[in-house]
């Protein structure tokens, strides 16, 4: 159809450029003659997903702290293993896995990357690349509370710059870091969809609108008193 050759991308559609640890069945997705038994991506069926199902013993870390990454505590590794098994059959499962790991541990420790990579049959570099690409995934443990302050235009029009400066002053830390007492991590966020009642913040997953300096002080004080 088109003379321009497709750019070579590092993905499982082409020959792997790294030693494969697991057998990779050939991808058959684009063969129109092949019929599928189910219209939906089925658990346990990997017609379109290049990786065969996993067993629990194959998802626990083999060696601790290989290649410099600090190893996870056994309890944490077990949590990660449980998540890996739960999502083993999901096509394109890396983001759901990382979300669940962050939910369980509060962040995505470097020590978990090898374990995840091994389980989903991708290189550690690829998994590291995904973790670092997305703003949501933390590579350091957060404070006891996470405050996201919207930095986008609608909130700017309603004083988010002043609000951000106030938060940074109050907590004694910059956006993207944790207050010295370890209580609150402040993160920038680019739009919370609460633009009709800007400026907006999200504290521990809960959205707040028309936030003033007095309101944020009260919210932070309330959060601190809980922990």
């Amino acid at each position, binding site marked *: 159809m*088109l003379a321009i050759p497709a750019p070579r991308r590092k993905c499982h559609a082409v020959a792997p450029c790294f030693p494969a640890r697991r057998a990779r069945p050939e991808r058959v*997705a684009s063969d129109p003659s092949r*019929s599928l038994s189910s219209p*939906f991506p089925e658990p346990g069926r990997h017609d379109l*997903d290049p990786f065969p199902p996993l067993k629990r013993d194959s998802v626990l870390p083999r060696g601790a702290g290989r290649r410099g990454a600090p190893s996870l505590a056994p309890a944490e590794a077990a949590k990660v293993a449980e998540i890996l098994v739960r999502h083993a059959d999901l096509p*394109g499962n890396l983001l759901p896995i990382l979300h669940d790991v962050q939910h369980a541990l509060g962040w995505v420790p470097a020590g978990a990357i090898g374990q995840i990579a091994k389980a*989903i049959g991708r290189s550690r570099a690829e998994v590291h690349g995904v973790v670092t690409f997305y703003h949501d995934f933390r590579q350091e443990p957060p404070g006891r509370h996470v405050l996201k302050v919207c930095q986008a*235009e*609608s909130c700017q029009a309603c004083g988010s710059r002043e609000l951000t400066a106030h938060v940074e002053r109050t907590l004694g830390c910059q956006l993207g870091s944790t207050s010295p007492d370890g209580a609150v991590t402040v993160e920038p966020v680019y*739009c919370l969809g609460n633009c009709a009642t800007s400026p907006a913040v999200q504290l521990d997953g809960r959205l707040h609108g028309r936030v003033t300096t007095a309101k944020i002080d009260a919210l932070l004080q309330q959060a601190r008193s809980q922990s």
Partner: protein
Amino acid sequence: MSEPSSKVATTVYVPRDSTAISLGADEVAAAIAAEAQRRGLGVRIVRTSSRGLFWLEPLVEVAGAEVQGAGGARLGYGPVTPADVPGLFEAGFHRGGAHALALGKVEAIPFLARQERLTFARAGITDPVSLSDYEAHGGLRGLRRALGMAPAAVVEEVVASGLRGRGGAGFPTGIKWRTVAAAQAPRKYVVVNADEGDSGTYSDRMVMEGDPFVLLEGMAIAGWATGASYGYIYLRSEYPDAKRVLEEALAVLRKTGWYGTNIQGSGFAFDAEVRVGAGAYICGEETALLESLEGKRGMIRYKPPLPAIKGLFGLPTVVNNVVSLASVPIVLDRGGKYHADYGMGRSRGTLPIQLAGNVKRAGLVEKAFGVTLRTLIEDYGGGTRSGRPVRAVQVGGPLGAYFDQSLLDLPLDYEALAQHKGMVGHGGIVVFDDTVDMAEQARYAMEFCAVESCGKCTPCRIGSTRGEELIRRIIAGQDVAANHRQLLALCDVMEHASLCALGGMAPWPVLSALKYFPGDFGLPASKEPAHVV
């Protein structure tokens, strides 16, 4: 979420939309329940979606046989705080009593009465996850009719409606479907782009939180029309409430046989799931979104091949915005012509416009294309919230141009805005008052592009960082003329050599700020340079 009571006389509606919740709607609902119980009154509380009149949130509505002077319509009270609740009961609000917060009939509020609500017809009226509510208000009629038609006829109906993608690019939805329908493959997908990252936009969120069935119905129609059997809703992680509502709605549809292996005995199989993004603006670009769904970095792909031919997991994929798909059921229900009769020129149908930023009456305005920015900001919006004069308006998100007062009479229409190097985008309008520093806004536009660039192409990856530096130097007054020249040249490169709209359009807010507000950069108000159209 109703309070069972032996003697229910009045229904009280409290929104569960996340903006309303961010202003305390949950606390208000709890206070109403507690106060009603304390007074021994039979009051049923229904958690609805929001009408989109956000300056009145939390907006509490009452209806029932005992409500005086409503004639069956809902009476509104707002904005209500938990502290107002005892006073409201004292005034007899549950019987339509007079109170300082009383707004009269909600549907007679001018902001709402003067709209043309097609896609948002049910907003604020129904319980988002009640299928019987949905059906009672016209839901599922589109899918029923579609399943009785040949798939190709469904595609042609959508083509005839003139519906164009509401996500920003404005590509005709029907044409996209035709391409996917013609592709031969063992499986096809419907992917919903719910990565609504533009600042000043919230219409996707309102659909998903307030009327999830209309989106899911639109997806099933798209599946039937194109031969796709599975859908993914790629939802941004900033919308946790939307995820909960969508999953509740999906469960209801599966239980009632509207999703699954044999939809209503038609033999048509369709199911879907929600996938959550991870805070990358670029994943709103359709190919980056597909990469992300496949579990990779959200790097954009070269096109062709189009996702319609080779999309998710290498298979033909319909990628549509939330509002585009939510507009489909009414097209099938009433016919393509009904939809096409709204609008102007090549922009057919209605556009959900979102008023945001420094505006007095911020909220959702669904109108046929062609309404002017001035009407929207002054008549609907009521000017700025701060009471100061409007100085600048950004239309279409962080990549949209900034307009000054002189352009407010432009009609909102894909082509009219394109002539002035602007875009409708996702229909968000952010209003700034006269305290705004446009040089700082221009600097931010480049900074945002640098933060969110996927890094695939050089003009965007490097250009955004260099652009931010140049603007910083101009602001600091360093060698202004030379840096200005270089900035224009850089914008030209980014605009024409970037792979996708992020790098290609990040210069638009910068160039428009330079053009309309040169004084903010310390530049003389001169004739516009050749680079600026």
